[in-house]
């Protein structure tokens, strides 16, 4: 697919693109568990096709868009330049489309659906949840007996995931099978809402990053950018592993939704990063030692542009950046995240100002990279 180019107004030249909140809403409401990202991808294609130079879906299902290659002359300089001549770096921006959810693995005689997790979900949050299953979005509840019928002491136990089931109201396996198939995915039945600056919805990890990335490509970037909306991050960083090999960028920025630490009784240190505290930068997680030069640059751009930044808790979590950074001969990589409360759960919260700040930070960092990034 080659997109039509739409004329851009000169008025906003230099300013960062506006965060597409409409897209965040649409993407949050859409279902797309790991391995089932098709509908999310279609929404993003609709949102970005007119802005990018090329758009394709690779063998794994990653959506890959290229923008700004000819205008920045990267290719020509790359071939023609001798020795140490600087060229604009080819930047890979990546956000994953998939969300944590469950898959139907069997349909019981009584019409109940047995479930398996895709991605990290705490079994404590599951009982009583309303889920939407299959492409038709049929609603069901994760069944649990009411207090009347619960044995004394059982109300303090966590039900293991394998013992949970989804009840769509069907009376038999035959009846259930008319609407649900083994292998269907189910997601939390949550609708996006606003409250002041707070945005509430499911799957902000990483539809928040997806929307930030789609917002960024609305304007022509100052460096050649390959935008990747990746698949299967939550089940092992799989999509980005394949995409990075093909894109072979000079450096990578991964856009994420990350866990904020605020909780009752949490100390100030434990509460970090905070929702509303600005884009969150990673130094180290289970998969990545972020490139020091990139992290320093992100921080400096934040300072210069008066965009607050904060640190993600080192050592926890993992992102596509881990795999991208080990691709080929190695790719300097960093992660910029939207701090979200209650990720991997039915409803996450984020601060709309953090979303725009993240767009701003990445946009201005791309400009700084175009001016001063040099190979090691």
């Amino acid at each position, binding site marked *: 697919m080659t997109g039509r180019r739409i004329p851009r107004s000169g008025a906003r030249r230099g300013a960062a693109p506006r965060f597409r909140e409409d897209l965040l809403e649409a993407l949050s409401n859409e279902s797309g568990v790991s391995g089932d990202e098709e509908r999310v991808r279609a929404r993003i294609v609709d949102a970005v096709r007119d802005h990018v130079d090329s758009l394709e879906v690779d063998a794994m299902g990653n959506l890959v868009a290229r923008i700004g290659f000819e205008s920045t002359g990267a290719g020509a300089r790359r071939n023609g330049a001798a020795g140490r001549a600087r060229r604009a770096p080819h930047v890979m921006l990546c956000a994953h489309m998939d969300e944590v959810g469950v898959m139907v693995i069997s349909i019981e005689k009584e019409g109940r659906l047995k479930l398996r997790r895709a991605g990290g979900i705490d079994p404590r949050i599951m009982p009583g949840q309303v889920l939407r299953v299959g492409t038709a979005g049929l609603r069901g509840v994760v069944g649990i007996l009411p207090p009347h019928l619960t044995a004394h002491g059982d109300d303090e136990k966590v039900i293991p995931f394998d013992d949970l089931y989804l009840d769509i109201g069907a009376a038999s396996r035959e009846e259930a099978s008319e609407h649900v198939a083994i292998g269907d995915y189910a997601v939390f039945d949550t609708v996006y809402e606003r409250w002041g600056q707070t945005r509430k919805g499911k799957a902000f990890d990483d539809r928040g990053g997806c929307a930030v990335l789609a917002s960024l490509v609305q304007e022509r970037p100052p460096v050649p950018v390959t935008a990747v909306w990746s698949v299967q991050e939550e089940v092992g960083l799989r999509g980005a592993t394949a995409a990075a090999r093909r894109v072979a960028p000079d450096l990578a920025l991964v856009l994420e939704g990350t866990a904020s630490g605020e909780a009752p009784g949490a100390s100030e*240190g434990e509460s970090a990063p905070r929702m509303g505290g600005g884009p969150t930068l990673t130094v180290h997680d289970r998969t990545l*030692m972020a490139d020091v030069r990139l992290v*320093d640059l992100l921080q400096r751009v934040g300072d210069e542009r008066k965009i607050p930044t904060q640190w993600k808790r*080192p050592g926890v979590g993992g992102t596509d950046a881990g795999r991208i*950074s080990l691709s080929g001969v190695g*790719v300097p990589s960093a992660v910029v995240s939207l701090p979200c409360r209650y990720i991997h759960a039915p409803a996450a919260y984020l601060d709309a100002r953090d979303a725009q700040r993240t767009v701003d930070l990445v946009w201005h960092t791309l400009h700084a990279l175009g001016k001063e990034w040099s190979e*090691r």
Partner: protein
Amino acid sequence: MSPAAPSSLESTLPQLLSAFGPPGRESGVRSVLRRLLRGSGPFHEDATGNLHVRRAGPGRRLLLAAHMDAPGVIVTRMEPDRGQARIAVLGGRKPSELVGALTRFEDDRTAIVTWERKDGADPEADQLLLETGLGKPVRGGSPSRARAGSGAAVRLEVGEVAALDERPTRMGDYWCAANLDNRAGCAALVHALMRGRRLSYDVHAVFTAQSDLGARGATTGAYGIEPELAVVVDVATWSEPKETSGFTPGQGPCVALKEQGFLAHPEMLELVRKAARAARVPLQYLIREGEGSDARAVRAARTGVPTAVIAIPARRSGGVWSLMHARDLAQTADLLAAILAGSGDAKGRGTGGRAKRTRAKSRTKQRTTKRGGRR
């Protein structure tokens, strides 16, 4: 360019042991290596932090890998009320080994690892703290700004990385230090590279970064080189006699038969044995579970690389300290030098053309060996 006059292992090792180099922050080791290897080939530093040194030669492309990083700690959050910082361990160290260790940041600020005591239990990772010794640290700012420093002594920020105690001591025949794994391997490799006058291979030495985080440097380092064969130099440490596979410090370098993610390649095993015989170096065998080296990434690079692991024996002696016999280190350097000189190849010192024939021959040998099982 002719290599600079070789210094002795006795003077090289302490320099490497004292250099700053936790996983992902190997800058100090890199600069010591650049100094030690001055004149021995073009240097290149890659995105993962590996330091590459090329010594062009006539034969096959040989990758020599030794990891530079040694375990460290990273500040995860501040505990402003107690003048302490929470930390996470970077690399393979048990929390119990770290308690009491002196740590040093790149700019020489120091702090002690302490822990939140719970009765009778060994320290868990989430109980570790850094004692800054200065009451309430200042909050805010950033790692890079804290590095720049404004005269403040021990001011810590989330994300800052410290190395473990870097003061080596010599006790009789033994080196005692926290970072022997794998600065000793680096030292052996440096000396083999400096010594080799005539090379039988096109030598690509890679001092790898982030090995303790999962052979990350070896993954990207080997990819760019596309080696035809590889030797990984590391340290084999044991803490309890029952964990040993029969190797003893002081009895010579080990060649690995099996470790996590790696089984010895028959051709390479034979190459190491031959070189050891030629160099009159006694060999021991290493078999270990649940622990590995860069070999697991190197042998899987591209379409696969015949790989050997040479490991210097060491004994973990409590806390962060390990002991290593000086002669094992010297013999490891001798063994590596013999390999570089071609003593392990079927025809001895090989030229480019010869190397090809040698390779065809050893492939035949490999098939025979496979059929017969490993003897």
